[in-house]
């Protein structure tokens, strides 16, 4: 990023306003504090004007937000305690309140448990892999090289912006058992690659590989921004004291990178816990449910018309995400 930002003109910092600032005005900043001048009536009407304008600006957003975000959130909570099915859409009053039945049903469903285990597998292996690759790439780009930085950055970021469906088309070719590009490449080293998508033991590693490929670019960019906030002087001082590159990374860079690391971990975990698209387009959850995820199973229940059950499952995912996020905050905060 350093290579680029230098050319963007003004070096960070607040926007310089065009010369609209009236010269003679006291720079009291807030217009709200303007009560100490002018009659109370005028101030009141100015505040009313401000409030009215604010609401005019807010109303379009609020209407759309209420209809398409807030209302579905509330309704989903309601559905999760009812036995709503697809056919009840036409007769909204025929649904019954069933309490927490949907939740107990979901939690005792073996497929749901399998999906939970798969999701955990995906997060516990996929997240560290993604973060390590991203951090390695970021450190190499930040400290190691001086030229072509933008080219590498661009290339590594490319998978992030591409449609999962198109990616799936290509990756199915890459992962084909006889004749796929990956197994062909493994063959050069005398390794016989597995039947990635057909073997229940290898289907999840294949998807993890694909997800890491697709997502490490985002984390890399954020790490790069974080690394650039680490002052070079600290490294120089440590180098003079005889710390080698690894020690400097471990004891100078990492502690300063902790807020960035926390942020990347939280956002990656939230994304990976909702793991859906990769199995949906690659394996449909198979073979033998070896790649079915929580989000995907929820979507299947929605497809079967079990709206109440699907809503309950989606809230279970939400709770898991909230807990994992809170845990990460605690773990990484405590050690600072």
């Amino acid at each position, binding site marked *: 990023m350093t290579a680029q930002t230098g050319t963007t003109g003004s070096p960070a910092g607040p926007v310089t306003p065009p010369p*609209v600032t*009236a010269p003679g005005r006291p720079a009291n900043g*807030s217009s709200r504090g303007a009560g100490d001048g002018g009659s109370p009536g005028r101030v009141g009407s100015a505040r009313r004007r401000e409030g009215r304008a*604010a609401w005019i600006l807010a109303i379009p957003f609020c209407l759309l937000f209420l209809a398409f975000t807030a209302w579905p959130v509330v309704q989903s909570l309601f559905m999760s305690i009812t036995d709503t099915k697809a056919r009840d859409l036409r007769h909204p009053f025929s649904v019954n309140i069933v309490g927490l039945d949907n939740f107990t049903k979901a939690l005792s469903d073996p497929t749901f448990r399998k999906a939970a285990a798969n999701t955990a597998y995906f997060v516990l292996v996929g997240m560290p892999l993604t973060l390590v690759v991203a951090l390695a790439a970021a450190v190499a780009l930040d400290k190691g*090289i001086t030229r072509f930085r933008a080219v590498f950055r661009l290339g590594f970021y490319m998978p992030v912006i591409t449609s999962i469906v*198109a990616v799936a*088309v290509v990756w199915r070719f890459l992962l084909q058992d006889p004749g796929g590009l990956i197994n062909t490449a493994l063959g050069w080293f005398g390794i016989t690659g597995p039947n990635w998508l057909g073997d229940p033991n290898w289907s999840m590693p294949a998807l993890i590989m694909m997800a890491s490929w697709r997502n490490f670019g985002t984390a890399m960019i954020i790490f790069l921004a974080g690394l650039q906030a680490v002052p070079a002087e600290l490294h120089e001082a440590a180098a003079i004291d005889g710390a080698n590159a690894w020690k400097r990374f471990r004891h100078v860079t990492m502690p300063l990178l902790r807020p960035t690391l926390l942020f990347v971990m939280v956002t990656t975990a939230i994304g990976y816990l909702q793991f859906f698209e990769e199995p949906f387009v690659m394996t449909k959850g198979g073979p033998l449910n070896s790649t079915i995820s929580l989000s995907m199973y929820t979507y299947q229940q929605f497809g079967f018309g079990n709206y109440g059950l699907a809503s309950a499952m989606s809230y279970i995912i939400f709770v898991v995400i909230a807990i994992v996020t809170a845990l990460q905050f605690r773990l990484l905060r405590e050690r600072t």
Partner: protein
Amino acid sequence: MSVDTAPRPTGPTAPAPAPKAKASRTGSGMVGSSQGSRWWLYVLLTVALVAVIAPFVWMVLGSFKGEGELRQIPPTWLPESASLDNYTQLFSKLNFGQFFTNSIVVAVVVTAGNLVFCSMLGYALAMLDFRGKKAIFIAVMGTLMIPGVVTFVPLFVLVANAGLVNTLPGLFLPFLVSPFGVFLMRQFILGLPRDLLDAGRVDGAGELRIFWKIILPLCGPALATLGILTFLGSWNNFLWPLVVAQSEDKYTLPVALALYSTGQNSTNYGLLLAGATVVIIPILVVFLIFQKRFIEGIATTGLK
């Protein structure tokens, strides 16, 4: 969208620290020593780069190949006899022109909606004082954390009851505003000097005029970031259009490609690779044009 003079949105935008220590890093290398000796790192990074973009290269090359060649073992890289057959078939037989138009319409409308509505509320939350401000802010921020799967079912029920299934409005209406957009715009506008507002008032400009004429023109960088991210998200959005678009004339590109790749054309490899290329290339072009702004936006907002 004027995106040239661009002080990045510093401000307290996100936990990811803005690169503020820029000044201390004048030279771009590190500790000064051992600069020329990093050739092995270039080799390593180049190998990684090749591995990362190989799928794209192979996809584009493959889209010019014939069926027979695509089934060869071992696979070939360069097409033995390149032809545009797959593309002509894609657009003449499979109606990809229509899907392309649908994707563009939905993405443009969604992007426009987000730019307009989110900047309006973002400004009100950042600069104005009004009743209910806190409640709106909390509600918007609260939903930032709710995963999409929670709202999916009731959203579909809502759209179905409104008779919008299998219509273009059904595809874009639910995405016209986003909590993330408001957050981004609010954070950016908070970094603008409040004096602008007071100066405008002294000059007798109305409240809405101040927003439109003074504040919005200064929001270029934030609007660009939000616009690109929204366009990208909408272009690649897959699950919602898959459920809502039910007849061919309403398909977006990802939906069409997904259905073809699992349907009766699933064995027509050349066609699928050409389809994948058509889905990816437009977004790649947009990305290459705006990549600097784009990556800065990711770095400062930390979201994609």
